[in-house]
């Protein structure tokens, strides 16, 4: 049902691939999110279980009664990326629903401008909209506000009692099969999604009122907090916050979340689709400098996927290697031509011998074979790339000053951008790596071995062996070191024995000599070897992707499109259009040098330019005359031909139109301070 811009027969297939890929990615991200939140949710769940155990036991002890004035509260610190919270809360309520209680109310500040609305919302959600809106309304009109609140609170407790009674009278096991414990009265959980934006009055009232009823109604509050836990105390006075029994929960920071997502989505051979360096950079910049929202990052990623599959006809091959083979075989002639047009493929052809070149350029079947092989190569390259990248990251991430970046995504970007081993940063990080101490080096090597073992690529058997060899050598060194120590100790003993000056001098010189001649201990030699080996790995496997043939098929690289759609600059667009209309209207008459504007520009541009000259108030008459001067200058010759009155009218009308357009655009507004004046709303260039 979606028409693509080109009418190739693959469009449908491409769309399907795109959809399935996106669905995969989406489920993966959700999985990641779930895993990350698991810890947090487990803590919360156990807290909720604990909170009303007293209520369960129905003890009548005095301490308990004292305590029961307090509402157990969980403060959930979620970080500033408010837009991601929605998802967190949704999964939270799901978890709670399954494990703790069916009674969950979910309140947002924008729904609750007053305590009345809050209570209505609360009851509506708890009773699953048993309360008819109309009946509530009648009630509203009948009773006074104070009265109603109490009434609804008591009705809430009544409702709660009846509900729990009912479930008691029913077979309790039936209702509570999901929860492990046999809960007689599950707590009522009220979630305040964005606590900061609630009006304090409403919050205070609600807390005070509900603390009165806490004995009948096992209430638990959950505050979603974006800033810091201190906000509770600044929002609520002491008398109110003392009614709360707050426990703090900290969610994972969004940065960690992002790096997991990148790890799972990009640094894996699982998904055939890849992001180019610039695109990734744009996405990360938007994340770091604009919103810190993982949700937006994923959205940007989605856009990349869609854009790639939309604009690249060959993206039909961007799928799992098994499918890709089949699809290559069924490629049409046009698609083969498309392959031949790819710049990376051209480079590849140029490297071949001439017969092969001709075959590649003429025979479709041969081309398909080669393409299959190349695609396979690309896939293998990705597999290797990821493992080696991780391995390199192990080394670089612990170096002082992090010349190649702390996060693996920075390293990834650097590797994508160009040959990483040609950069200065790489050079300096190798230098630093050559100075690592042994224990660090050994642990790193062990980590590398783990990475390579766990990776799916089968080329790494040798590498693993080699690394293991290094490890055993290190161990040997250790043993040798013990012996050496013995030697040195013995020599020292000798020193102690011989006390005459001559001998002492001689032995000291000898010792010195031996040290100098050695220069590099065995350990140092080995260290160099290890670093060199890593270096060779990097040179082999971390070739930037755009040096690979057919990388266009799987890499999305048009960062400008992405930036235009996600991080647009409407003001700049307006500004360019007004200042430099030639940018949009390719007419020679509009061409001007150095940002100046031709007097033949569209009316609105001229009027805009004129208004830039003015202060806060603009006299319309003067403006009009200036405008007509400019316009007359353009139409000079014709001005006399037509009746001047007519021309005047047209210019007047054009002026009116331009001014009202400026008003619509928000540059000016009518002013009452002086007759026939408008006020300017902007300063400076825009």
């Amino acid at each position, binding site marked *: 049902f*979606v*028409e*693509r*811009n080109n009418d190739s027969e693959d469009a449908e297939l491409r769309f399907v691939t795109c959809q399935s890929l996106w669905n995969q990615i989406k489920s993966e991200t959700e999985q990641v999110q779930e895993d990350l939140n698991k810890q947090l949710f487990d803590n919360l769940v156990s807290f909720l279980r604990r909170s009303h155990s007293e209520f369960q036991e129905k003890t009548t002890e005095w301490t308990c009664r004292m305590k029961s004035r307090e509402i157990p509260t969980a403060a959930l610190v979620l970080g500033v990326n*408010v*837009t991601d919270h929605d998802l967190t809360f949704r999964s939270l309520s799901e978890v709670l629903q399954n494990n703790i209680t069916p009674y969950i109310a979910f309140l947002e500040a924008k*729904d609750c401008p007053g305590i009345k609305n809050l209570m209505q919302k609360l009851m509506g959600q708890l009773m699953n909209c048993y309360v008819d*809106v109309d009946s509530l309304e009648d009630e509203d009109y009948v009773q006074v506000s104070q009265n109603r609140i109490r009434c609804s609170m008591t009705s809430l407790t009544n409702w709660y009692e009846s509900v729990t009674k009912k479930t008691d009278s029913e077979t309790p096991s039936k209702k509570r099969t999901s929860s492990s414990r046999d809960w007689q009265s599950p707590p009522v959980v009220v979630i305040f999604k964005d606590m900061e934006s609630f009006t304090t009055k409403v919050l205070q009232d609600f807390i005070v009122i509900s603390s009165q009823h806490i004995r009948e109604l096992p209430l638990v509050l959950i505050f979603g907090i974006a800033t810091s836990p201190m906000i509770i105390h600044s929002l609520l006075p002491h008398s109110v916050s003392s009614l709360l029994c707050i426990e703090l929960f900290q969610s994972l920071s969004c940065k960690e979340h992002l790096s997991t997502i990148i790890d799972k989505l990009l640094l894996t051979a699982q998904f055939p689709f890849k992001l180019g360096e610039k695109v990734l950079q744009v996405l990360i910049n938007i994340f770091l400098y604009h*919103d810190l929202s993982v949700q937006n990052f994923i*959205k940007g990623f*989605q856009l990349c996927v869609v854009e790639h599959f939309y604009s690249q006809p060959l993206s039909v091959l961007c799928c799992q290697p098994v499918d890709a083979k089949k699809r290559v075989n069924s490629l049409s002639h046009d698609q083969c031509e498309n392959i031949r047009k790819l710049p990376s493929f051209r480079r590849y052809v140029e490297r071949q011998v001439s017969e092969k070149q001709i075959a590649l350029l003429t025979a479709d079947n041969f081309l398909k074979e080669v393409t299959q092989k190349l695609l396979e190569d690309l896939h293998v390259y990705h597999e290797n790339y990821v493992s080696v990248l991780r391995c390199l990251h192990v080394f670089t991430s612990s170096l002082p000053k992090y010349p190649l970046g702390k996060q693996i995504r920075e390293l990834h970007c650097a590797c994508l951008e160009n040959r990483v081993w040609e950069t200065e940063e790489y050079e300096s990080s190798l230098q630093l790596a050559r100075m690592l101490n042994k224990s660090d080096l050994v642990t790193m090597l062990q980590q590398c071995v783990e990475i390579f073992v766990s990776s799916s690529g089968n080329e790494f058997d040798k590498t693993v062996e080699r690394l293991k060899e290094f490890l055993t050598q290190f161990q040997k060194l250790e043993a040798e070191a013990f012996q050496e120590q013995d030697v040195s100790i013995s020599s020292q003993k000798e020193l102690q024995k011989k006390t005459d000056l001559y001998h002492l001098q001689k032995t000291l010189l000898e010792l010195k000599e031996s040290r100098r001649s050695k220069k590099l201990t065995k350990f140092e030699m080995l260290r160099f070897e290890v670093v060199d080996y890593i270096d060779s790995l990097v040179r082999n496997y971390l070739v930037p992707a755009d040096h690979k043939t057919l990388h266009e098929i799987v890499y999305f690289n048009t960062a400008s499109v992405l930036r235009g759609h996600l991080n647009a600059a*409407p*003001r700049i*667009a*307006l*500004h360019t*259009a007004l200042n*430099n209309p030639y940018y*949009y209207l390719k*007419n020679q008459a509009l061409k*001007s040098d*150095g940002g*100046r*504007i031709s*007097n033949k520009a569209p009316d609105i541009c001229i009027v805009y330019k004129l208004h830039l*000259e*003015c*202060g*806060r*108030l*603009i*006299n*319309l*008459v*003067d403006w009009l*005359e*200036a405008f*007509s*001067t400019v316009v007359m*200058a353009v139409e*000079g010759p014709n001005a006399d031909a037509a009746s001047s009155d007519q021309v*005047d009218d047209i210019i*007047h*009308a054009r002026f*009116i*139109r331009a001014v*009202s*357009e400026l*008003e*619509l*655009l*928000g540059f000016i507004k009518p002013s009452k*301070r*002086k007759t*026939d004046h408008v006020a300017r709303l*902007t*300063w*400076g*260039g*825009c």
Partner: protein
Amino acid sequence: GIKVRKDKTQLTVSVKRFVKKLENISDDEAQEILEEKNYVAALGICAQDPVGNGSGVSGGEVYSFQTPKRSSKMAELAAELAQTPGQSVAPDHSECPEKTAKTPQSSSKYMFLLLMHVFSLQLQSKKKEYVATTPYRLRKRLAAPDPYLESESEYSASCSEEEDEEDQKEVRTVLSGRKTPAKTKTLSTPPPRNTLAKKIKEDKMSNLVEEYFEAHSSSKVLTSDRTLQKLQKRRLNQQTLHDILKKAPLAYAAEIKELNQQHEFLFSKWKLQLHLGFNIVLYGLGSKRDLLEKFRTSVLQDSVHLVVNGYFPSITVRSILNSITEEVLNHIGTFRSPLDQLEFIIKRFKEDSSLELYVLIHNLDSQMLRGERSQQILAQLSSLPSIYLIASIDHINAPLMWDQAKLSLYNWLWYETTTFSPYVEETSYENSLLVQQSGSLALSSLTHVLRSLTLNARGIFRLLAQYQLENKDNPSYPGLSFQDFYQQCREAFLVNSDLTLRAQLTEFRDHKLIRTKRGADGVEYLLIPVDDSTLTDFLEKEDED
């Protein structure tokens, strides 16, 4: 002192360009001396225009903190004096039409262009000698108040007596302001341009902030007092305006068409992206109405869609929601609040996954829709997976409507669609200052209502109208206070107690003939919400009767 400083900040805007300009200035100065003196003043201002104009063009400067590049007085004068050369030069065009045809490329500065028409043929050769010498002489001459100049200035003829006074003053400020460029010129003509630039840079930092507050501190803004009424030109009403504009050919129609075609190329992509859960917002100069209309007719023909004309002055979120519930969901019934209605819509759309709706909103940033609450509701609406929103924005500050939460609800994809097409529909509702309010409707309703009232009631209304007309020149006229009004009515034997007056006023209010508002002191003020000209017409008509 202040003047000098101000000029310096003008210079800072773009030093290089200014230096270049200065040469032009001096060239012109050289020429001017041989010409009429009033040209001198005019050109002095014109020469400053390029400085201002040249600024802020580079994209990078768009967002930077910009001070007023000129004090408001100076700038306003620039605009004011702009007409002087224009008026005098306009007739000159017949003399050198071929010149006009040739030059526009080279001189994009219109003022400059005009002057060049006049002067370009003369004195080209002698420039250099003047460059060094004139500024001093010129400065001396300009510094001295010159009655000759004032009496000759073009607009004293068209202005009233007191305006003339002010004009004189203004011209003098021009002159004093004008001294500085000349002085700077003498500093900078020889090689040391770099030093000048450096100095200016230093100045820039220190003055930047000061300048800004200086320009904003004085509440008094000097502008000319000319009004449109004195222009001897009838105001156009909406209809004639429309007709005239229809006659006038649209400039660069071909290029605009090409632009539009580029945008139309994106239609199928838009539809795809809408289906994938994004919403699309269009920005850029020019009306995007036609583009969206085209999108609607070419792509959305077979699907359910709703077009919202955001620029319509009485559009509300409620009406949007109503049209969804009533026409799309076929629901009959009312809702207590927009939030309830929204909830209902969300529920319906979630229940029935086959339900799809395209919403096209022209001008999402219009007066009526830009409020926080309406944006929140629209954002929530657009976040529904089966509602596809495509909207356009025009206001420069439109993106400020949305905070992070709303942005994530909207899930925008931004598309730049600069069309350069005129905002015909969008501005037709805007009550532009220049368009004459027809007022015919208001007038007829006035007469009709009043005709049905008693004689006394008419008298009461008349009193109020007269009083309002007497005060029409007072911009801060709050209305007639109830007590005063009562007093006046008593004196005219129109009412005998304030109760009867109140009853009468209630009747007026019901017919929307008057408006009451409370002043700061709690006194009730009465106002007729009709513009003065209509009111005058009405009184004249009454008198005839």
